[in-house]
């Protein structure tokens, strides 16, 4: 192949050919190699990659070629899976495996919560919006986030964690470890061997969704620990992260809310266009950041400082303030304790479940836990007291 390329470029230098071959081997991409070759060779050896993929960034799915397995064997493979991960079950509305004892080793020692400790977050699915009413009779619009079969997959302590992308001012004594959390157990046959291997040490079936949360070392969790909605309490304040709805390539009116131009009065061919995009003279160019048409949506967006109004413990649903949680219904949303300095918990008497909720503490939890400001719909109608004369 190198010969063909050389012929195309009109080269016949022996040295050039050698360099070219090595680059092809390294990058496996012809175009890249061709551009590399045009200049002088300055580097000795391959450059250190500035960007690395994190260790859980693996080839996830495989090609679904026909394997020609007999139905009996197919059943057998299924049974092996069930033996390994437990029988299939629907737990709190989600189909998963009934893993009886996920913890292989002794659970890590429980730390004590301090205002500086950082807890793990959860992976949820946005399942819809609906109103509730406060005790003063005002409607409270909430977004429902269902915690979907979350388990801790891996813990990397701060000393071992080597971030893929270091910031310019990277602190060497980074004090936060990393918890890898997975959501939604799946059939292992759907994924590659290397992806399934990520979950094997924790004794878990492969998960469809992965999430990473920075935690302080005292909030570390044993791999295999299940996480539920009771990780938070009603009244807690959280931040949510999600991907906004993909709206494709959009014009300025939809993307930036421009007013457009008149529909009539002699206006031709410019009804929804942006108009002028720059001045002349010294500023005679398009300034960076000018609002123009382009791709809209499908971006990670944060929404901070949302109060949890209610928790459904049966279906693991969090009722979170507001309608602005990014993404459409049934999309994935990550949720963690708020980082807003004025809304963080600072009082040690109000410490959250640490490092996570222990289900063995109380057996008979009610199905619904409400914030004291919320009017539960099974209590009598709201009536205001008459003013005293």
């Amino acid at each position: 192949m190198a010969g063909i390329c050389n012929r195309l470029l009109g080269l016949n230098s022996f040295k050039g050919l050698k360099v070219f071959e090595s680059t092809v081997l390294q990058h496996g991409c012809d175009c890249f190699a061709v551009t590399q070759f045009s200049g002088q060779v300055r580097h000795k050896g391959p450059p250190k990659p500035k960007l690395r993929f994190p260790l859980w960034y693996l080839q996830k799915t495989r090609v679904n070629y026909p394997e020609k397995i007999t139905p009996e064997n197919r059943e057998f493979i299924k049974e092996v899976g069930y033996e390994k991960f437990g029988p299939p079950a629907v737990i709190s509305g989600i189909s998963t495996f009934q893993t009886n004892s996920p913890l292989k080793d002794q659970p890590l020692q429980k730390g004590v919560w301090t205002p500086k400790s950082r807890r793990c977050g959860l992976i949820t699915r946005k399942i819809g919006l609906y109103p509730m009413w406060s005790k003063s009779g005002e409607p409270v619009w909430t977004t429902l986030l269902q915690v979907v079969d979350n388990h801790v997959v891996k813990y990397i302590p701060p000393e071992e964690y080597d971030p893929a992308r270091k910031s310019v001012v990277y602190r060497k004594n980074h004090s936060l470890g990393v918890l890898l959390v997975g959501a939604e157990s799946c059939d292992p046959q759907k994924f590659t061997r290397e992806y399934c291997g990520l979950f094997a040490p924790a004794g878990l079936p492969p998960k469809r969704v992965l999430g990473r949360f920075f935690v302080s070392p005292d909030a570390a969790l044993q791999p295999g620990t299940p996480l539920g909605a009771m990780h938070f309490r009603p009244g807690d304040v959280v931040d949510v992260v999600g991907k906004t709805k993909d709206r494709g390539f959009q014009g300025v009116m939809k993307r930036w809310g421009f007013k457009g131009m008149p529909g009539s009065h002699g206006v031709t061919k410019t009804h929804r266009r942006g108009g002028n995009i720059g001045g002349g003279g010294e500023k005679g160019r398009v300034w960076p950041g000018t609002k123009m048409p382009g791709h809209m949506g499908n971006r990670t967006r944060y929404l901070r400082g949302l109060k949890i109004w209610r928790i459904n413990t049966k279906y693991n649903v969090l009722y979170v303030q507001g309608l602005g949680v990014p993404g459409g219904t049934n999309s994935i949303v990550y949720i963690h304790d708020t980082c807003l300095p004025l809304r963080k918990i600072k009082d040690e008497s109000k410490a959250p479940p640490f490092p996570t909720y222990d289900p063995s503490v109380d057996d008979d939890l009610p199905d619904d836990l409400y914030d004291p400001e919320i009017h539960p719909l099974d209590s009598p109608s709201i009536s205001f007291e008459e003013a005293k004369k």
Partner: protein
Amino acid sequence: MLLRNIIQRSLTKVRVNVQLQLERRNATVASPVTLDENVVRPEAKELSKSDQKFNSLQQRFVYPEFLPNPTLEWRNPIREKLERIDMMRRRSQVDLPEFYVGSILAVTSSTQHAVSKQTRFLGICIKREGCGLRASFVLRNVIDHIGIEIRYFLYDPKILKLDVIKLEKRLDDELYYLRDALPEYSTFPEDMEPEILPDGMPIPINTTKVVMKPRPWYARWERTHFQGINRELMMTHVSEKMKMQIPLHEKPWEKYDLMKQYRSTIPEEEQKDIFAEVDSELHKLELLRKKQKRKRAFVKPLKSS
């Protein structure tokens, strides 16, 4: 000739199919006139099994808000289930009886700013919309020559009492045209006596055709096909130019659009599952309501001295 015959035959086939489809999976969208003929009120008596099945399919007219929004991208079975649980919780606290667009209702709700902390509003229901906990209805009345409309959320805990003063239907699914009709059509005295409908009676349909006021109007009523508008008198207010535009805005093909019909309705099987969940509780509440109604209907005879 032959070709034309074939085409005609195939067309009639399509029409029959469409009608069948409408009957099968119709919830909200189809014209109300066809639906009304089928409506039989659920009875309190013990029903046989086949009757109960029929009954649960009729629930979609009585409790339309139990059916979720059919838009596929907004649906989630667990959210819908949670919503239904909450709705039943609210229904255990307040009596939310059966009513339709065109019925006359009186809503007593608690209001922070009223002197007695309660208000009662009586009016005709001109619109019912929304699914689940966000279900709402609009009441309209003319008080002191001013038209007043109030939107109530059906499951709002501020609603203390919902009385059906007159249970009846109109010819249409929504009555926003009453805004542009003569005021007498939406004027109801606030001390209206409730009319109690005997058990097992079909819901009466009020076939009033309202007379519209001269323009300007809230909407282009001449372009719509509402049965409850007196069309002849309405057209006297419409200019020739507006009359010419009417056929341009007609969409006669929409009633044959099976996909549109499918997307805007919940399939029959799903409806059955949904009502199977709440039927027993709804039935209990209905029995309770019947008991209270009998009490109300019975007037204690006065002692004759």
